[in-house]
């Protein structure tokens, strides 16, 4: 249609018109090519990620169990119900939400603190720094299945290296992943929620290299003359850290916090493989999995999925608003 309009244009300035027409068709052709190139990826993502996410909401309002699957009509909307929400959002849900929050915040903060410390070390010059930077990423890139099994064997109550190295044998030995709470003999016998702390430690261990990478990249981008100027003014290393490095890292740490928060909030494999959510470590994702495969109740699992997504959106929204207000 556009082409036709241009062709009908008045005779004077015909050259210019023609030029314009060619430019437009060029732009149009460019856009057409672009659409052609991006369409397969968009279709795939729509089909496999967006559409299921929306359909999950529909499923959450339908009373579906495993045994209904063979005769299930996906497009039957006659039996919509709120039962799934009533059944799913009981005391067990709120307990899991609480555990998830503790687990997420503690792991996120811990990973960032440890990553910051490692990055401050790696910015110094020393022999073997290249190897240090590569090796420190091991926990992050290793398959979660291996890492979880290594931890389980190291922390085993009977033959684990950790109990053996701490001299805890027999009745003193600690079930790091299997006890809801235990008295710490070397900490004056304080009671601690030991399994929860252990899965948090695992999560920190696995993801501090991620924080390390980002923080180190940011530190290396700080212009060195800032430090030189500070040295001339007689600033000590700790003052340089406090007044130059840390302020420069605010944005990257805020970004890391939000990313790690989101990803930890719906992390499933780590706890599932470590202890299956036993001993006070049942996070929401593990609870969803249990509704799905232990109780074979698809509707409730879907409802909890909606709850998980909603909780995440609320937390992130609140965080963004507060951080946004600060800046």
């Amino acid at each position, binding site marked *: 249609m556009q082409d036709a309009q241009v062709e009908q244009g008045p005779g004077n300035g015909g050259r210019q018109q023609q030029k314009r027409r060619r430019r437009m068709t060029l*732009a149009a052709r460019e*856009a057409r*090519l*672009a*659409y052609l*190139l*991006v369409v397969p*990826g*968009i279709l*795939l*993502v729509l089909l*496999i*990620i967006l559409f*299921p*996410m929306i*359909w*999950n909401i529909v*499923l959450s309002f339908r009373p579906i169990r495993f045994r209904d*699957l063979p005769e*299930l009509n*996906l497009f039957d909307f006659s039996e919509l119900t709120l039962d799934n929400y009533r059944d799913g959002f009981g005391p067990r849900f709120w307990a899991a939400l609480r555990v998830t929050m503790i687990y997420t915040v503690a792991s996120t903060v811990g990973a960032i603190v440890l990553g910051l410390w490692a990055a401050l070390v790696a910015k110094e010059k*020393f022999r073997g720094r290249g190897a*240090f930077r*590569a*090796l*420190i*990423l091991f*926990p*992050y*890139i*290793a*398959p979660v*299945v*291996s890492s979880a*099994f*290594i931890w389980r*064997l190291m922390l085993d109550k009977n*033959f*684990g*290296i950790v109990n*053996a190295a701490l001299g805890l044998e027999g009745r003193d030995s600690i079930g790091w992943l299997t006890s809801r709470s235990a008295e710490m003999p070397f900490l004056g016998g304080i009671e601690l929620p030991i399994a929860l702390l252990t899965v948090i430690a695992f999560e920190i261990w696995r*993801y501090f290299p991620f924080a390390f*990478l*980002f923080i180190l*990249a940011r530190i290396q981008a700080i212009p060195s003359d800032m430090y030189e100027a500070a040295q001339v003014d007689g600033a000590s*290393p700790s003052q340089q850290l406090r007044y130059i490095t840390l302020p420069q890292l605010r944005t990257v740490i805020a*970004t890391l916090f939000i*990313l790690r928060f989101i*990803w930890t909030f*719906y992390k*499933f*494999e780590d706890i599932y*493989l470590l202890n299956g959510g036993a001993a006070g470590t049942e996070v929401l*994702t593990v609870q*969803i999995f249990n509704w*799905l495969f232990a109780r074979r109740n698809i509707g409730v699992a879907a409802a909890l*999925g909606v709850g*998980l*997504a909603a909780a*995440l959106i609320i937390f992130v929204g609140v965080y963004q608003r507060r951080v946004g207000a600060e800046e």
Partner: protein
Amino acid sequence: MTQQTLTKRNRMSRDVVKRRAGKALKWFSIAFFMFITVFPFYWMLNLSFRPFQDVLTDPTRLVPRIEDIQTVLRPLRCIFGGDTEFCDAAVRNSSYAAVLIEFNFLRFIRNSLILAGATVVMSLIIAVPSSYAMSRLRFRGREAMKVGILLIYLFPGIVISIPLFVFFIRIQQSLGIQLRNPIGVSLIYLASTLPLALYMLSGYFQTIPPDLEEAARIDGASRLRALWLVTIPLAAPAIATVGLYVFMIAWNEFLFALLFLVENPDAWTLPLGLQQLDSQEVPRTFLMAGSVIITVPILIIFFFIERFLTGGLTAGGVKG
């Protein structure tokens, strides 16, 4: 005068003490980080070479006995068949041979290689042209697409797993297409790694000067031909890095393999096969041999792409 020199000396010695403390802290930190990151993997290796009985009686043994290592390594040749009398008895005492032969890890290695390889190929076929379009071509909705990619990046895997599970069963029953197999799983891997691949690749394409490509086009090459002949070869290191990174993600993935392949032991991937090995009847040290088999290829790949990868990752954000 004396007072002044005294304070001066005092300050100097305080500086020396501080510097020494700083140095000690630095080396303590280096040792601490190397210990927590390397020791667990060393321990995996150590346990994988020891008989479980030995682990039970001597949990702190730091290095396996030589004869235990030999017992583990010698039956490895049974992978290629051979003396059945020797093999039948010896395989059960060798963690690696038992895992590879009796517990089918050879097959799982093949399955994982095919699944991850197919994911990489499909991912690059889709991601290279799309990311090229996103970084070089002007079209309506480009900015929306960039934002969309970042959002998709944050989707919760467990939430989409429920409807996908229902869909795959319904599709099989009503259309007769089985998707609870490596094909269906690789489609999910593809969709979930695509945002990352697009992100990293389009970032790289932006760093290649468009002049080179324009020169080819003045010589009469079409846009796609210029992409193929000029831009892709220039971006080869980045494309290889993204490919290997997608490979690592697919190789490590556990949740979707568990959901869609668990009923079909012939199609198990390595992580799923290892997890299924976790039972009371299997000696714990076998689990460590299996872990070594899964982990070592990843660590090797990582050493090849470390430099490119850390740059590409920190340019934006990466899912973990």
